[in-house]
Every structure is written in C-alpha cells, then in structure tokens.
C-alpha cells in the first residue's frame, strides 16, 4: 500500500501510535511520532512510497516531545534511533528536518554492506552521475536542477554502491535545499513540489523538494555508474570542466566515503573498480542552464579495453 492511499487523519494516528514502516531503497524505516509537521512532510514527500505491514524494520525511529521544562515555552523534538538518542533536542518546528537527518544517520551508522559516498547521484539513459559533496559544493542545488530537467533521482545525500555488483542502489528521498538555493530552485523549477521553509537550523534555512513519482517508482532499479563529477558552485564563474586523473580521483573519493576505513580490502577493490569504470571530472559552475546542458551532453565513459 502506498502512503498516498492512507487518509490524512489515519496517517497521523498511525504515525503516533504503532508507527509507519516506509520502504526506501534497500531499507525499511519504522517511524513513530506525534508531530503533525512530520506527518505533513511524510504525506507530501513520501506519498508514492510503499508502506510495509507489521514485520521487520531496519531502523526504529522515534521523534517525541521531550519531558523537560522547555515544553512550557519552546516546544522541542527529541529523537531516538533504536532507543539511543544521537542528537540533542531541537525546536519542534524543525521536526521534519530532524526526521530526515535521523534517517540519514541510521543508514550511515549501521550500513557496511554498501560503500556509502557522501554525495548525490542521478541517472539518465542507463548511466549514473555521482556528485561527491564536501560542504559548499552546491551538490543539492545541482542535483535538484538535474532532477527537474528529467534526470532520475537516485539520492541526494547518500550514494550506496554495492561492492559485489558495482551498481548504485536508489533511495529516492526528498532533496534538502539550503538558504539561497531554495529560492533559486523555486524560480528554476516552479512546477516541482516544495515543502515549507524551516528556519534557524544549524545549516540555516532548509526546505525540501519532493522526489518525482517516476524516480520513486523506479526505486528498485539499480544504476550503472558512468561519471564521477566533483561539483563546485562559484558565484559568477563560467562553467568549467577539468578531467581528474584517476589516482587523484581515488584519493579524493575515499575521503568522502563515510565507511571506507571499515570496509577494508573489499572497499579498496570496490572503489578501484568504480574509478576504473567512470570518467572523473572537476566541475565548476554558476549558471544552472549551462550546467544542465553540459550534463546533457556527457558521453558514456571510454572503457579501456587493455588491462592496465
């Protein structure tokens, strides 16, 4: 059953009582919360996602009102993952953003059967572009823009690569936009679904853009990596691309690979294969139309037939 098939009142009630089990890519996330703004966010952004019935869930998320004095004048949200609380309480109007962060945290801290690259990935015509993302790189802006122009959304934040198959598993969750990007995207892609602005988070103002229905319905189609593109947004800069030598690409990517140290030899092999099969670039941009055009003109990576 899809989330959209649950009536709004029932959705809120289910979330606050026994919770909802939502399937995102390889994972089932069980979430329990009384917060209306989370229920609204789930209804808006997860409407096309499947709900599982009672059974197994990979993560158990609880977002609740803490029993402290704060609730008198400034309501807060406390969150729990499998009964441990990883974050301090935050203002309750940020609850949906906290839910998204908590789900990211759950995946980061328990998943070692995938390489987890901190970055976005999108797919078109059977090949995926991975955009690894140090802060300030503008990857979410770029990701959202690409998605609005027809690229399939695989993920905005965590790119999961299977060491066995080398393929990327999609999560298709909402894209998180910050500060100026919000207005930029609402201008650039007014037809997309945007959630309310959430103010005063540690990252500034956040708003989410919904995943296209097509991306959600194709969530279980793994994608073949084609390109590794390190984006850098620079105000006023013209679009410029430099090919990245593979040794350097490897070292840069391994530092953006959250669980690389733990994966050991398997991680090393999977990463070398990923670098081998993709074309790697540094990409600087400021104009979204130019950036989208460049992506649209990308050629499939040249595969070296000779064993190096």
């Amino acid at each position, binding site marked *: 059953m899809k989330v959209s098939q649950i009536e709004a009142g029932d959705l809120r009630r289910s979330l606050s009582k026994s919770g909802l089990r939502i399937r995102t890519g390889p994972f089932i996330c069980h979430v329990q919360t009384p917060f209306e703004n989370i229920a609204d966010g789930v209804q808006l952004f997860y409407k096309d996602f499947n709900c599982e019935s009672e059974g197994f869930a990979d993560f158990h998320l609880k977002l609740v009102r803490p029993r402290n004095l704060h609730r008198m004048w400034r309501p807060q949200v406390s969150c729990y993952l499998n009964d441990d609380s990883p974050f301090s309480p935050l203002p309750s109007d940020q609850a949906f953003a906290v839910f998204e962060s908590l789900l990211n945290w759950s995946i980061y801290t328990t998943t070692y059967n995938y390489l987890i690259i901190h970055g976005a990935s999108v797919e078109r015509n059977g090949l995926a572009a991975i955009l690894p993302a140090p802060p300030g790189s503008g990857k979410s802006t770029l990701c959202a823009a690409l998605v609005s122009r027809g690229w399939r959304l695989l993920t905005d934040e965590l790119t999961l690569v299977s060491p066995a198959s080398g393929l990327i598993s999609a999560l298709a969750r909402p894209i998180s936009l910050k500060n100026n990007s919000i207005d930029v995207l609402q201008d650039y892609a007014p037809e997309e679904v945007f959630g309310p602005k959430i103010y005063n988070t540690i990252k500034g103002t956040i708003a989410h853009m919904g995943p296209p229905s097509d991306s959600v319905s194709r969530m279980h189609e793994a994608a073949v990596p084609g390109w590794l593109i390190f984006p850098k947004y620079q105000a006023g800069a013209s679009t410029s691309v430099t090919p990245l030598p593979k040794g350097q690409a490897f*070292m840069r990517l391994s530092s953006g690979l959250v669980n690389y140290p733990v994966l050991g030899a398997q991680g090393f092999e999977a990463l070398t294969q990923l670098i081998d099969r993709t074309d790697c670039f540094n990409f600087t941009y400021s104009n979204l139309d130019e950036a989208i055009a460049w992506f649209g003109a990308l050629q499939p990576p040249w595969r070296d037939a000779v064993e190096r």
Partner: protein
Amino acid sequence: MTAVWRAANLLTKSWQDGVVVYNLDSGSTHLLNPIAGQVLKLLADAPADATTVARRLAGQIDLDSDLELDYNVASLLNHLDSLGLIEPVTA
C-alpha cells in the same frame, strides 16, 4: 650491513598518474607517484636491498645507475618503511 627489504601485504592498482596502495595489515591507503609505485612492485616481486633495487629500477626506466640514484632510492625506501609499506626482512 644494509637491510634487505620486502613489501608488506598489499593490494595495488596502477593508473597513469600513480599507484594506489592498500595495506592489508594496517588498513592504510596511499597514492604513490609512478616511480615509487615501481619500486614497491620490485620489492613485491622479490625482496632486495637498496643497491639492488636501484640497479633494477635503472634498468626498467632507462636511467643511469649512479650515486645520486642510489641515494634517492635509499631515501625512498626509508620513507616507504615509515609508511609501513615495506619492512626489513631481518626484523
């Protein structure tokens, strides 16, 4: 008496701009320039002392064997040892 060196337990992958190396024992990862990568490969093939490595390297990349090369190779080997990528055989 000069030390005889051998490569540690390693996985490697060579590209045009260098060799990435994973140390299976320590779990550390390194990017070496092609020459350093070549030296490591020589030691992985067969343990050797600094002089032997210098000779073999000179042969492979068509360099003159001289004191400067010997000195550079010896320094490189010390550096590789400090990184844990090679170890003395007579430990």
